[in-house]
C-alpha cells in the first residue's frame, strides 16, 4: 500500500511542469517592476530577455494634456501561452516606480483599463507586440519613462525580464492659446461589441476640429462631426479602433495622439442578490440535511477505540444500564466533580 502510494505521489510530482513563471499570467494591475519581486517565483532567478524593447513617445508633450506612449517588443520568444507582460515605469529602482509616482496619470492602458502592467499575447508569426498607453502629462520639466517586459520561455524552465533604456521626456508648458482638449475630457477606452459609440469632444481655444479613425495601424478615414459630436462605427469583431482629432484655433494647429478604443465581448453578468440568496439557501439546506441525518447503526460506527468512562469505585449510578453509562457517564462524572445537579 505504502509503495503504491509512493509511486502515485512520484508520478504526480513528475507530471508537474518545472517553471518559475506563471504561464497563465498575473493579470493587469498597477505594479512595480517585477511586481516588487514576486511576479515570477523568484526575481533573482530571472533570465535576461533577448527581446528588443523600445519606448516611443510623442514629439511634443504638453503639461496637463493627453499624450501616448508605446512600448515596442520584438523577438520575446515567450512560453507556449504566448503571454508577454509589459510594465510602463518611471524609474528602474523597483519601488515607487509607477508612472503615477512621477505625476503621470494613466487614462487608458493597451487593454482599455488604467493599469501600468498589462498582458498581451504575442503573435506566433511575427513575435512583435506594441503596448500603447494614453497618459495625462505631469507638470513641465524632465520626466523619465521606461518599459520592461516579463515573459516565460518555450521550455518553461526560465522566466525572463527585459528593460528598455530610461527615456527622458521633456514636458513643456503649453502656449496659452494652444488648441487643446479640455482637462475634463477623458477619452473612452473600451466598448462592447455591436455598440455604436458617440463621443462629445470637449475642447479649449478651438475654433473648429475634424476627426479621423482607423483600424489599428490602418489607413485613416474621416468622420463627420456634428455639434461637437462624432460617432464611431459599430464594432463587429473584438479588436482595437483608433481615433484622433485635428484641432484648429488661434494658436498653432494641434493633432491629438491616436486614442485607442478596445472592443470586447460583453462581460458575463449575474443578478448578484439572486446568487447571494442561492448561496445562503444552499448553506442553510446543507446544514439542515446534515443535522437531520439519522444516527448510524452501531455496526456502522467508526470508533475503533473504547471511550467508556472509567467506572468509579462505588459503581455506576443505581438504575443505569451499561449503555447509558457509555453515553452519559462522562457527563455524570463532570457534574459530580463540578458539584452540579446529577
Amino acid at each position, binding site marked *: 500500500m505504502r509503495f503504491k502510494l509512493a509511486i502515485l505521489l512520484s508520478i504526480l510530482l513528475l507530471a508537474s511542469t518545472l517553471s518559475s513563471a506563471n504561464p497563465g499570467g498575473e493579470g493587469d494591475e498597477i505594479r512595480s517592476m517585477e511586481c516588487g519581486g514576486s511576479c515570477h517565483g523568484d526575481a533573482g532567478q530571472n533570465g535576461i530577455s533577448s527581446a528588443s524593447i523600445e519606448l516611443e513617445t510623442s514629439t511634443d508633450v504638453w503639461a496637463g494634456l493627453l499624450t501616448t506612449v508605446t512600448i515596442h517588443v520584438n523577438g520575446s520568444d515567450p512560453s507556449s501561452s504566448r503571454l508577454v507582460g509589459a510594465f510602463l515605469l518611471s524609474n528602474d529602482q523597483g519601488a515607487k516606480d509607477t508612472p503615477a509616482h512621477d505625476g503621470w496619470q494613466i487614462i487608458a492602458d493597451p487593454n482599455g483599463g488604467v493599469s501600468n502592467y498589462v498582458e498581451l499575447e504575442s503573435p506566433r508569426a511575427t513575435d512583435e507586440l506594441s503596448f500603447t498607453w494614453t497618459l495625462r502629462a505631469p507638470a513641465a520639466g524632465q520626466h523619465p519613462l521606461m518599459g520592461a517586459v516579463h515573459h516565460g520561455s518555450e521550455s518553461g524552465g526560465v522566466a525572463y525580464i527585459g528593460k528598455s533604456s530610461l527615456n527622458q521626456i521633456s514636458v513643456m508648458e503649453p502656449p496659452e492659446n494652444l488648441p487643446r482638449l479640455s482637462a475634463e475630457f477623458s477619452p473612452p477606452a473600451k466598448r462592447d461589441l455591436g455598440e455604436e459609440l458617440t463621443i462629445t469632444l470637449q475642447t479649449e481655444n478651438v475654433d473648429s476640429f475634424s476627426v479621423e479613425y482607423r483600424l489599428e495601424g490602418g489607413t485613416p478615414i474621416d468622420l463627420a462631426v456634428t455639434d461637437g459630436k462624432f460617432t464611431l462605427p459599430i464594432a463587429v469583431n473584438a479588436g482595437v479602433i483608433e481615433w484622433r482629432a485635428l484641432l484648429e484655433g488661434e494658436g498653432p494647429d494641434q493633432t491629438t495622439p491616436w486614442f485607442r478604443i478596445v472592443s470586447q465581448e460583453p462581460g458575463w*453578468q449575474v443578478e448578484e442578490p439572486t446568487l447571494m*440568496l442561492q448561496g445562503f439557501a444552499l*448553506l442553510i439546506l446543507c446544514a439542515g440535511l446534515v443535522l437531520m441525518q439519522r444516527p448510524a447503526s452501531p455496526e456502522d460506527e467508526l470508533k475503533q477505540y473504547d471511550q467508556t468512562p472509567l467506572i468509579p469505585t462505588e459503581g455506576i449510578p443505581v438504575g443505569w444500564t451499561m449503555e447509558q453509562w457509555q453515553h452519559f457517564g462522562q457527563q455524570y462524572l463532570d457534574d459530580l466533580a463540578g458539584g452540579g445537579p446529577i
Partner: protein
Amino acid sequence: MISAGTIHVISTELTVGMFALAGISFLLCVIGKGPEVRESVAHWALLGGLLATPLAIISGFNAAPGDGLDSPLLANKLLLSMTATGLSLGLIIKWKRGAELDRVHAGIGMIATGLIMTTASIGGEFARGETLLFFLPKDLVFLFPKWASVIILILGLILIIKSTIEHRIRSRTSVP
C-alpha cells in the same frame, strides 16, 4: 498597507490547509488508521476552516478585478464555498450534540473538503489561467430563480428547527 489580494492569499491558505487536515482526518476515521485523536482533529480543523472561510470570501470579493461577480468562475466559487460551509457547519453542530462518527458523517466531511479544494482550484484558474480540474464545466452556473432559493432556504430552516427540537427531546428523555 496590505492589499486585499495578500489578505486573500493568507485566508485561503488557512482555509484550504484546515480543510485538508480535516479531510485527511476523516479519511483516517473511515479506514480506521491513525491516532485516536483523529476524530477530534477532523472536527476542530473543520471548525478552523469554517472560521477562516468568511475572511477568504470577503477578501476574495475585494481582491477580484472588475466590478463584483463578473465571471462564472467567481459565481461557482461562491456557491461551492457556501455549500461546503453549510455541510461543515452541520457536521460540527451534530458532533457537538454528541452524534457518533459513522461513515456517512465522515463521508460528508470529505465531500466538504473536496468542495473547498475545488473552490481553491477555480481560484487558481481565475487568477492564473491554470487548473488541474480542466475537465469540470466551471463556466456553467446553476442559477435558481429567487423563488426556488426562498423555498430551499425555508426547507433548510425547517430541517434545522426540526433537528434542534428532536435533539432537545432526546436529551431530556435520555439523561437519567
